[in-house]
Every structure is written in C-alpha cells, then in structure tokens.
C-alpha cells in the first residue's frame, strides 16, 4: 500500500470498503435508470394474459413479437388502424431536413459571426442566443399565425420550418464557439489565395468541423425527434409526428388497454435517438469538450 492509499484508508476506512460503496452506489443508480427500460422491453414481448397475471419485473415466459407487429402495422390511432409506421415516417421526414437545414445554417451563421464580422455582430448573436431561452409555449400562437399565413399549417413542411427557426439559436451558438477558436490566419491566407466566401467555408472550414457537426446533429436530432408540443400544436392528424401518434395510441381508450403494444410503440419511438447516440456518442462528448475548452 502506498503512502497515499494508506492515508486515504486511515481517513475513510479500508480501501476495499470505498470500492464497495462506490460500485454499490453506481449499481443502484444504474438500476434506477435501467429498470423502466427493462420493464418496457419485457412487457413489449409478453402477451396480454401474462401481463395481467404476472409480475411486472419478470422476464416474458413465452416471448412474442406480436405486439411489435401490431404497434407498427395495425394498432388503432384515432379512427385509423394502421399502426404507427406512417407517423414514424412523418417524424423521419420532419427530422432529417430540419436537422440538416438548421445545422448548415448554424454553421454558416457561426462562420459569418466569427470570420466576417460586421458592425453589430454582437447584438445579432445576442439576439440569436436569446432565442434559446424563449419557452416553447410562448411562441405557439404567433407561430401558428405565421404558419397559417404561409399556408403551412398542419403540414410536415411547417414543422420543419418551426424546428429550423427554433433550433437556429442553438446551432449558431455551437458553431460560433467552435469557429471562434479557428485560426483567422487560415481565412486570410485562403482569401489571398483567391478563395471566395463560400469556397473558404466549403474547402477550409467545413472539413475541420466534424466534431461540432456531430454535436449539432445529435442535439438537434434528439430535440426534434422527441418534440411533442410543436408536433401536437401544428401538425395534428395525418401529418403528426411519432411522439403525437404515440400519445394518441396510448390514450385511445377503445376496449382493452394493450400495454404490450404501447410499450413496443414507445420503444420504436425511442429507437432512432438511441441509435444516433450509440453511433456518434463518442464524438458528441469530444465535440462538447472541444467547444467548451476553446470557446
């Protein structure tokens, strides 16, 4: 035992006890967070009879994928009984353009706000930051008016617009902080070499922006995918996103409550964000750190 460890041991009991306490606590918290997921997954593979009769924490005795198929293809949402698949595609059709557009615009804003400074650039950035702190609820009615005027009410295009506008503050913040640390000499050099505004952006800046693009995409993807309020306010019915459909599915009270179908639908709804995190999570942490330290 080194002197350091000995000192710790005398101050807080023997070393192994510390380990036990630390790992014990970690296990408890992991269990707290993982239990709901486990219950969801387990329930989604059980038959209704088993759910009614059995223990909520038990593994399915007789696993079935029937609830998953039903949730995807034939569960009743409102008056139509075609499952959530249509709404899943709605969500994808909303989230992909919204994420791409808001990320690209954020990058462009960050580029201009750091490398092509104009008079009042601080005020412009301040106002955009301010947008991050406006509660969703307070823009609902003005936004509805705007969408109505543009003829985009109850459409996926309208939702894309809403999410792009609302996400712009965040993406601009991400990119501005990242580009702030990007050497301006490189921009000057490219300018002297004859590169224009967009060439510099495309050839010099964007290729060096992978970490912050990943951060932006993950952040925007999760936020937009999980959004319920804008979805339920601006796109009811046929063009509703996944989250709204899930809510309708669960709250439809026709006949028996099908917990297994609800759970399967919920897992399907959560799956894309989960996949994005698993695939890009490593870069997410790295990008956040880079931004935090340099910004």
């Amino acid at each position: 035992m080194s002197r350091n460890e000995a000192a710790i041991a005398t101050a807080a009991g023997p070393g192994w006890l510390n380990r036990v306490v630390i790992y014990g606590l970690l296990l408890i918290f992991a269990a707290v967070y993982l239990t709901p997921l486990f219950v969801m997954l387990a329930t989604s593979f059980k038959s209704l009879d088993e759910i009614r009769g059995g223990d909520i924490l038990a593994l399915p005795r007789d696993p079935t994928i029937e609830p998953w198929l039903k949730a995807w293809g034939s569960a009743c949402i409102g008056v139509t009984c075609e499952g959530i698949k249509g709404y899943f595609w709605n969500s994808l059709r909303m989230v992909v353009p919204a994420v791409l557009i808001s990320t690209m615009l954020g990058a462009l804003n960050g580029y201009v706000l750091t490398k092509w400074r104009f008079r009042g650039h601080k005020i412009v950035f301040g106002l955009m930051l301010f947008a991050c702190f406006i509660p969703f609820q307070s823009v609902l009615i003005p936004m509805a008016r705007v969408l109505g005027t543009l003829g985009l009410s109850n459409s996926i295009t309208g939702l894309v617009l809403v999410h792009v506008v609302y996400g712009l503050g965040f993406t601009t913040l991400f990119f501005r902080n990242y580009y702030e640390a990007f050497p301006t000499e490189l921009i000057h050099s490219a300018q002297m070499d004859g590169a224009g505004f967009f060439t510099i952006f495309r050839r010099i800046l964007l290729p060096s922006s992978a970490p912050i693009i990943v951060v932006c995409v993950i952040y925007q993807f999760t936020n937009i995918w999980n959004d319920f309020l804008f979805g339920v306010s601006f796109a009811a019915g046929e063009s509703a996103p996944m989250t709204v459909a899930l809510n309708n599915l669960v709250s439809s009270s026709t006949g028996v409550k099908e917990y297994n179908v609800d759970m399967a639908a919920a897992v399907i709804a959560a799956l894309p964000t989960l996949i994005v995190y698993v695939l890009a999570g490593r870069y997410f942490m790295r990008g956040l750190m880079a931004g935090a330290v340099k910004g």
Partner: protein
Amino acid sequence: MAFIEIDRLERSIGGNHILKGIDVALEKGGFLVLVGPSGCGKSTLLNAIAGLQPPTAGDIRIDGQSVLALHPSKRDIAMVFQSYALYPNMTVAQNIGFPLEMSGTPKAQREDEIRAVGKTLQIEHLLDRRPGQLSGGQRQRVAMARALVRKPRLFLFDEPLSNLDAKLRVEVRAEIKRLHQQTGATIIYVTHDQIEAMTLATQIVVMKDGVIQQSGTPAEIYNRPANMFVADFMGSPAMNMLPGQVAGDGRHMAPDAAPDRLLPLPFALRVGRRIVFGIRSENISAEGNGVEALDLPVEIVEPTGSDVFVWLRLGSAHLSARLPATSDPQLNENLRITMDISRAVIFDGESRERIDGAGH
C-alpha cells in the same frame, strides 16, 4: 517612381492610432524589412498592404496603381503567415496547389508547378503528407512553397521565423536570402528580430508606435542611427549610451556617470549642451595606448567563442566592449581601452535625435 509606394498611410481603431502616416518606397527586387518592438504597427502595415485590414487614410500603390480598392486576391500578393496558416485538411501538394486551383490553372500544369516548387524547397518527399505530420521547419517550407508557386509580384512575410528554434531559424533565414537572390522577388518582411533585419534586408524600416523612426540600408541604420531608439534597438549588445554635458574646449564630454573622465567627441559642440554619447561595443578596443585611453575595471566577462564581451564600469555606468577571442581580460582588474571616436554617434540630450558635426 518606385515599384511599391506607401503614401501617408494611417490606420486607427476606435481613436487608437496604430499607423500615423507611413511613407515607404521600395524598388522592384528589393527586400524591405519592417522592424520594431511588438505593438509598433508593423504587422498592421503588412496587413494593410495585403488588403486584410484596410487603412483609414493614405494610399498604397504597386507599379503605379493604387491597390486599395482591390480585394486581397486581386492584388497579386502572396503572404507567408507567422503560424504558416496551412490548411489542415489538405495534403502538402493540395496546400501548395490551392492558389493555383483558385486561379483556375489546369490540373496537369498545377502538378508540374507543385513538383517544381517542391524541388526548389526540397519538400518533394513530403507532398502527400498532411501539415499535422510535419515539423516546424517543414511547415515553414510548405508555406513558402505555397507563396512561391503563385509567382506574385510581391511577397509578404509576417515574422516567419519566430516559431522555429534557434538553429533552424538561421538555416531558414539563409534559405529565404537565397530564394530572394535566385528569384529576384520583391519582398516585404516583418520581424522584431534586428539580426534578421540586418542579414536579410536591402532596406530597413524601423518603426515605433506607428511612426517610422528611420528608413535606410542596413549599414546606414547601423552606423548612422537617426535617433536613440534606433541606435538602441539595432545591434546586439545594444549601443553603449552615456548621457553627459559638452565640456572644456567643446570637443570633450563629461559623462554624468563619471564627470571627471572626459570623453573626446568626434566634432566640436557648444559647451554646456546636453548630449548622449553613443558607441558600439566593437568600436571599443583593448589595443592602442594614446592619450585618450581609459583604464576601466572589468565587471563581467562573456566569452562567446568567436569574441569576448567585456562589461566595464565607468563611474556609475557600464560599457560593453567586444574584444577578440584571444584576449584574456581579468575580472575586477583594470583594462586599458581606446574608443574609435570617428565611429561614435552623438545624440541631442532633449530631442534624442542624432547630431551631425556641422553647424553646432
């Protein structure tokens, strides 16, 4: 009319005057070094020439034409930045080829030119690497290659050697000099290192606080500094400066540090006038035995291998003398020295400007 003409150039940011009326003229093929302490405005001047920071007044003409209205890319100027500014996501070859690509040079020709310039700078074997995989000296060469490949009418260098270690700095310095001699390019070069300025320049401009202190050939700047700032800034060790008063017959000075040790002056001045007597360490020798010889105690001995620098005490002041390596001065003992008075420089005590012999 000179090739490059900078005419009463001014720049101020928010009431801060960075450049206060700069006038510079440079002939084609000249090597102009802008030198001065940090914050003197030399980099601002360079950026103004490049077009990266527009001046608030004045004009810059190249080949008789004002370039102020031209975008940096249209001025036909290449610049080597202090940080080298290599594009991190491109290979060395792509970096060098970037300006050619931007000007629409066909790919085959581009590759030929990249290879040719790579050969000149001995970086052919690095063409496929990325800047992150290069050493400082190699990055420096790539940055120079990227400037060279454009064959611009003017090169700008912004402290290009300041990120290199001492040995490499000397090497690259020689390389830049060789390139200048080979290509006959016109170069404006910014540095705070007076040795770089002396070794490279055909013309030196010494700046301080946004004002040109002196402009001239390295020899002029070194031997006939316009004022005490230039005399002190150029040369290492700095010129010995002794403030004092003209005494006796007007051909001697009584230094404040030791009023009884009269120093001879190169020309006569009004008795009682406040002056500063300046002499470089190499103009003090331990030889000769004339009436003007001084016996001064040795305080510090600094052998450099090629020379020995000796610090001598004169009353409350110090003098540095550069002696041949063969001399063997003894610490704390008196050393008999003579000064080459014809090389001494006299400054006015108030204005701190150099005084010439006639009319005083």
